[in-house]
């Protein structure tokens, strides 16, 4: 299997603070990958390391099998849209495209121009006067007209209104359908990720809490509720991700590849939102060998 991002022991230190530490990742290529995690988990640092804007303090990262700062050829293989989709406010749309053509050997002028036309943007308009949605679309156009094999986007839709967000994601998905590139994007909007991503990575405090195909993750997690019982009474093939108890009732979110047939449980499917929140609130201690202590939450 080829990987779009592979990291091991990856760390980045600013002064005395580690923004990312001991991160291990293997994200398969050819997917639309959603990277989620709380603020400060190291997502942006990870993406900046992946595109070569930062150099690691420790460990290694490979993107499409090569080192991110491996020279112009490698830079041309990866498209990057930074947080808040920055553009040069004083330059016109047309000048952005000219600059893209000048800076990128593999620039596809036809893609760039047809997208600008399709979006209804005036080439003479200054980028600073575009709406948030138009600016994001311009940044996306610049990133894909260099015909990258992989597109990395950091919170591309965070500041967009719902309509602009939908338009942006539609454009992104059209590009994926037409060009078949790998995409890695971060977002807090799990509902959006659920539509567009086929692979999910939950990153908490530099650690991958869970990673996998979205469809596989959804079908292997269940919410069980019933009369109160201890997590240790659950079968060994059910990994407890989250649990809460009242004096009478217990609710578990479990991961298992087998169907749950125990008639004592009411079994509900989980949404991607449930799943992300469960893994985000899980104590970051993957070496745990025994079942967690019961905690009474209400």
């Amino acid at each position, binding site marked *: 299997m080829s990987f779009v991002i592979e990291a091991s022991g990856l760390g980045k230190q600013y002064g005395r603070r580690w923004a990312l530490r001991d991160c291990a990742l293997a994200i398969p290529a050819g997917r639309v990958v959603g990277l989620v995690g709380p603020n400060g988990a190291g997502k942006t640092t990870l993406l900046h390391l992946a595109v070569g804007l930062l150099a690691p303090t420790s460990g290694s990262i490979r993107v499409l099998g090569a080192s991110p700062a491996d020279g112009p050829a490698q830079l041309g293989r990866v498209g990057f849209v930074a947080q808040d989709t920055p553009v040069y406010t004083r330059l016109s749309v047309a000048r952005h495209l000219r600059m893209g053509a000048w800076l990128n050997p593999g620039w596809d002028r036809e893609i760039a121009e047809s997208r600008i036309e399709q979006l209804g943007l005036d080439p003479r308009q200054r980028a600073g006067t575009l709406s948030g949605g138009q600016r994001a679309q311009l940044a996306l156009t610049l990133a894909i007209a260099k015909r990258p094999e992989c597109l990395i986007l950091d919170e591309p839709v965070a500041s967009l209104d719902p309509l602009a967000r939908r338009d942006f994601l*539609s454009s992104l998905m059209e590009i994926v359908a037409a060009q078949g590139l790998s995409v890695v994007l971060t977002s807090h909007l799990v509902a959006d990720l659920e*539509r567009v991503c086929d692979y999910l990575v939950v990153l908490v405090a530099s650690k991958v809490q869970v990673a996998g195909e979205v469809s596989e993750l959804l079908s292997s997690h269940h919410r069980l509720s019933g009369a109160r019982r201890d997590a240790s009474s659950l079968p060994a093939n059910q990994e407890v991700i989250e649990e809460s108890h009242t004096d009478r009732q217990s609710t578990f979110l479990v991961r298992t590849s087998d169907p749950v047939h125990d008639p004592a449980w009411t079994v509900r499917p989980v949404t991607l939102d449930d799943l992300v929140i469960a893994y985000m609130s899980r104590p970051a201690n993957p070496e745990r060998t025994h079942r967690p202590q019961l905690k009474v939450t209400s």
Partner: protein
Amino acid sequence: MIEFQLDTGSGVATYLQLVQQVHQALQLGLLEPGDQLPTAQQVVAKLAINPNTVLKAYRDLEREGLVRPRPGQGTFITRSLPRTDPAAQTRFLGSMTDWLRSARAAGLGPDEIEAIYRTAFRSCFAEGVA
């Protein structure tokens, strides 16, 4: 050409929603053999979903023998589905109503009855929906 809709709150997997909508369109006679389905690109442009989701739905339909891809042209309906037999629907509606009445007469409340129904439904379709 049909247009797919997405019900994000339903909890039904997106690809399955697409499959079901093709089934329904066939049962209602909205789609007939020879008709073309929208291309993956058209679907993702409208719904902002992952193209692989559309391809997965189309592969499922192909496996059922309902559609066939024609290289360079698109995906076409090859077979129609029999319209649901209205007599069977009426019959099962009748027996379901009888069952509900007897459950209620036995003192079960609506929530309990629904829980029983859900459990039975799930065990009956466990392999199909996952």
